[in-house]
């Protein structure tokens, strides 16, 4: 019984000795991915301070300087490092602001999905029976519509009813809502599967024998033990949400061109691809690909480390 030292390990010590950190130190791809991800997020968050111009400020836009190429191409203007788009906005600044919008929508939608999915998954898994059958059939129905289809219908309806102006004003919360509502079954299924596994363990019985109310057993006892698969699925879902947003914007149902996200930037440049202004589409596209790629790589690494066998993509 003397194997324990008297002082318990602090949170930091536990993290320092954890397998998570150990495997991270040995995985170059995970380290690079995290670095790139942090750089992108920091650049997006700090856009108002980092960006040379404010693309929302019409006074700073010079329409005469439209469609200037990036610095390594002939005919570029050194003021506009990455060139300008068709409206004369500095592309670098627009990308930074756009990445911000994309990330806000991505994380916001995932927060909504997770909240809904975790609650429904917990209820379905813990209560079982009719509640389980009802919620899971609901999830099946939801999954049988593709996210984009739901989003297109809702977006188009909203636009038709309230008009394009109102749509632009509420574009960010609306996209969060649409993508969040469309994808909750992913969470619900994963959470339900791990709840079923945890529910059979004796600590849950012990909590019931104690007389704890169901709500407390679900949130205090079971939920913390299902976090690993939730983390893994969250990384994939953030990437998916960012892509969904880009796709919607590309179809003209997402962010308006006045507050561009990465998706609407790609779309706005698409019309000029024929006229040789490839950079308006290609550079934001590249940023989008890199962002989604590093998130997915981090998710893969996390899945290998946490190894939640229950997770099915």
């Amino acid at each position, binding site marked *: 019984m003397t194997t324990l030292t008297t002082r318990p390990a602090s949170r930091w010590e536990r993290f320092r000795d954890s397998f998570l950190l150990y495997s991270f130190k040995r995985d170059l791809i995970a380290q690079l991915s995290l670095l790139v991800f942090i750089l992108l997020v920091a650049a997006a968050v700090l856009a108002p301070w980092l960006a040379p111009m404010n693309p929302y400020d019409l006074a700073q836009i010079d329409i005469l300087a439209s469609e200037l190429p990036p610095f390594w191409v002939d005919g570029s203007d050194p003021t506009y490092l990455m060139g300008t788009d068709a409206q004369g906005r500095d592309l670098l600044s627009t990308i930074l602001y756009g990445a911000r919008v994309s990330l806000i929508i991505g994380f916001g939608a995932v927060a909504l999905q997770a909240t809904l999915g975790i609650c429904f998954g917990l209820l379905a898994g813990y209560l079982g029976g009719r509640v389980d059958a009802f919620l899971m059939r609901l999830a099946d129905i939801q999954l049988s519509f593709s996210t984009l289809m739901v989003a297109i219908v809702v977006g188009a309806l909203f636009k038709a009813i309230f008009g394009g102006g109102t749509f632009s004003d509420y574009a960010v919360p609306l996209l969060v809502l649409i993508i969040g509502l469309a994808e909750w079954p992913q969470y619900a299924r994963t959470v339900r599967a791990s709840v079923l596994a945890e529910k059979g363990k004796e600590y849950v019985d*012990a909590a019931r024998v*104690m007389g704890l109310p169901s709500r407390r057993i679900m949130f205090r006892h079971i939920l913390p*033990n299902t976090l690993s698969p939730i983390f893994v699925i969250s990384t994939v879902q953030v990437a998916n949400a960012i892509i969904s947003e880009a796709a919607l914007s590309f179809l003209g149902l997402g962010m308006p061109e006045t507050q561009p996200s990465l998706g609407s930037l790609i779309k706005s440049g698409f019309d000029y691809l024929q006229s040789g202004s490839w950079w308006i589409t290609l550079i934001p596209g590249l940023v989008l690909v890199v962002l989604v790629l590093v998130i997915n790589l981090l998710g893969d690494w996390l899945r290998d480390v946490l190894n939640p066998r229950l997770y099915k993509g």
Partner: protein
Amino acid sequence: MNSTATSPVSEATQPLLALRGLEKRFSLSGDFLEQLQFKGGKLVRHQEHVHAINGVDLEIQRGEALCVVGESGCGKSTVARTVMGLITPSAGEVHYAGQRIDDLSTKQLLPYRRRMQMIFQNPYASLNPRMTIQQTLEEPIRLHHPDWTAQRIKDKVNEVMLSVGIDPDWGPRYGHEFSGGQRQRIAIARALAVDPEFIVADEPISALDVSIQAQVLNLLMEAQQRHNLTYLFITHDLAVVEHFGTRVAVMYLGRVCEVAPTATLFARPRHPYTQALMSAIPRLEDDRPQHIRLKGEVPTPVHLPSGCVFHGRCPHADTRCREEVPALIATDDGGQVACHAVEEGRI
């Protein structure tokens, strides 16, 4: 709801726990849609059940340690879980101190939760891996004594930790930092934290090593003396029963086949199954009596044999055993046995 005004006098004389005709079936056939089958061109609803317990009557008196023994699948754990309300019985009643408790809601059960507690088999699964020992032990106290101050709760946790031989300084640690025996101590501390009078222990030592088993058994016996506890002790290990139990109930295929005071049962097992079970214990002594070999294996509890559930393996079975279910009858030495052959004086 009948009135809860049971007088203290009657509570002292009646058994602490009484099971009456307890039955539990688990469905094997899934939900309604999965039960539908085509048979002979017709849609029929087909259901299959595991008969985990089939009519168990047991009484536990205050202060005793009733051991329930039997082989895997005999329903002994189901009995324990039904008593604790983790499973609702399919038929029959559970009475605690004169009050029927199997039909109470979670809220109505709360006062009984404080009086009856449970210790589980697997110490590696019975502690929440994301909670510290301190949190694990504080939780039941906080729930059942919402009026206590933080300091009083802390003192109580210290007290129970000391009483099970765990250093209170280890409170901020997590369960996985402890060995199996220490975890089982913590699980016992959790059960003792609310000062119960009745403890259901479901195979509390079978997952532990031999040297640790002795420690935990000693701890359970100390706790019994100190807190005047009553135990329902589920085990498959007859050596433990002989040491620990005041009375023994032997179960086979969801029925009780013999109940007797421990010394009586070990001196003179009456039921043929008990006899076979006792002869199969590997003993250290060299003079091993040839163990009674039972023919066949335990039938599945899905399709129960007719009559006495043991008749297929019993050397004394006759036609009556194949047709009529034997009832528990009192024997001359203070026990009860459910066997036609014993009743008729054939064995």
